[in-house]
């Protein structure tokens, strides 16, 4: 009997809503009351340093490629010792949706999320962060990984001296 069912189903919602009116709301009254953030909360991004204190970011463009809203832009440059780094690095937080895809794409663990979500500004330009604003003085989540000590191109250590490498070959050697 759909009609009967419909009529029966008509009343309970009224009871539910009525009862709710006398319960305590669950809303967190934010500025007065701080929310408790989960440990892996994704908010403002930072650029971390490797254990040697060098900038981790190598300006590989993977984060900007992964970013669904295209809010990361940068320019790579080469340092004296062959190190690739970002000569400028810009994140437009007015556009960022804090999805964290950039941190997943980053091969050097340079870009990481923090739980600082209080970054609203009246002037959108103030939400455009440059490299100086992003760079922090610590390693973030991981204090061991250093890209240049894994990648065998002789930047952090001379060629062929990283733990996984043998010394450069002598191409003129004819020994079998």
């Amino acid at each position: 009997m759909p009609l009967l069912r419909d009529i029966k189903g008509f009343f309970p919602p009224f009871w539910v809503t009525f009862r709710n009116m006398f319960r305590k709301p669950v809303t967190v009254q934010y500025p007065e009351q701080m929310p408790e953030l989960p440990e892996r909360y994704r908010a403002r991004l930072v650029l971390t340093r490797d254990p040697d204190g060098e900038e981790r970011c190598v300006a590989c463009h993977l984060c900007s490629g992964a970013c669904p809203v295209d809010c990361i832009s940068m320019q790579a440059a080469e340092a004296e010792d062959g190190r690739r780094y970002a000569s400028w690095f810009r994140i437009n937080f007015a556009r960022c949706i804090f999805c964290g895809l950039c941190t997943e794409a980053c091969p050097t663990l340079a870009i990481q999320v923090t739980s600082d979500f209080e970054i609203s500004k009246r002037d959108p330009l103030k939400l455009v962060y440059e490299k100086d604003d992003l760079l922090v003085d610590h390693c973030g989540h991981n204090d061991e990984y250093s890209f240049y000590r894994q990648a065998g191109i002789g930047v952090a250590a001379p060629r062929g001296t990283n733990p996984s490498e043998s010394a450069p070959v002598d191409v003129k050697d004819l020994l079998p």
Partner: protein
Amino acid sequence: MVDQFVMLALILIKLVLVFAVVLSMAAYLVLAERKILARMQLRYGPNRAGPGGMIQPMADLIKLLTKEDFIPATADRGLFLIAPGLSALTALLTFAVIPFGPTLEIFDQKLPLVICDLNIGLLYFLALSSLAGYGLALGGWASNSKYSLLGSIRGLSQLISYELAMGLSVVPVVMMAKSFSLTAIVMAQETIPFALLNPPAFLIFLISIFAESKRIPFDLPEAENELVGGFHTEYSGMRFGLFFVGEYINLVILSSMLTVLFLGGWHGPWLPGIVWFMVKVLAICFFFIWVRGSLPRLRYDQLMNFGWKVLMPLALLNVLVTGAILLGMG
């Protein structure tokens, strides 16, 4: 001469008072609705502007007034501009015939607590509520947007369908009160409200005014999640505000009509008549909000089916039965 001046002054004061009360009621209804709905959903609702959010309506007004009044490039400018006013105005005008208390005696003057006691007040109400369709139809048409147009087409057909049932449902009331004057109808309920005498008519009227007010569960003309904003999609600033206010004034009016036609108007024990009237109207408004918090929106075909295949025949039948009973009782 003096009498006439006093009379004029009293009428003016009454007008201003009614105007102010209706408008501020509409404004605070919005706040009340937001707060009550919020509590039903375990939220607080607006609580930032003023203590407990009490001056939120003012804040909203300022916001709406200062926002850009945007007119789409392809809109029909003239119609686009007047449509919101039309919808607020027709709603306000209806209040002219609603009696909200027994006749008062001040300075030897009889002061009826109704702005104008038309002897065809009920027809006036029905006529104006049909006119209200224009605001919606023109607004939707003039916006030149598919969402607006769909919204207004839905709204029009919904209003037409449910007006029939509504009109038919008040026929028994007229038969029982033997008058079209709303004051006379109220007087006829001095002992027992028509809601008890003729519950089917009451229910049909109740359902119809839900449809008339375009509120949940019949809010298809606006249906945010299908039509963006329905007929007022393209409106912004105070023009949107006018549509909005019109809607809430309409809510007050419809509640008043329900009170007048079925709930015995200002009649009630112990308390003064005007207070009884207010209490009844506010209770109905609360009911409107409660329904909004509890029921989902109907589908369009369900709405039409219900209007034409259930409500209309029922109302007709009710007219016949009531007529028969009245005849039988002589």
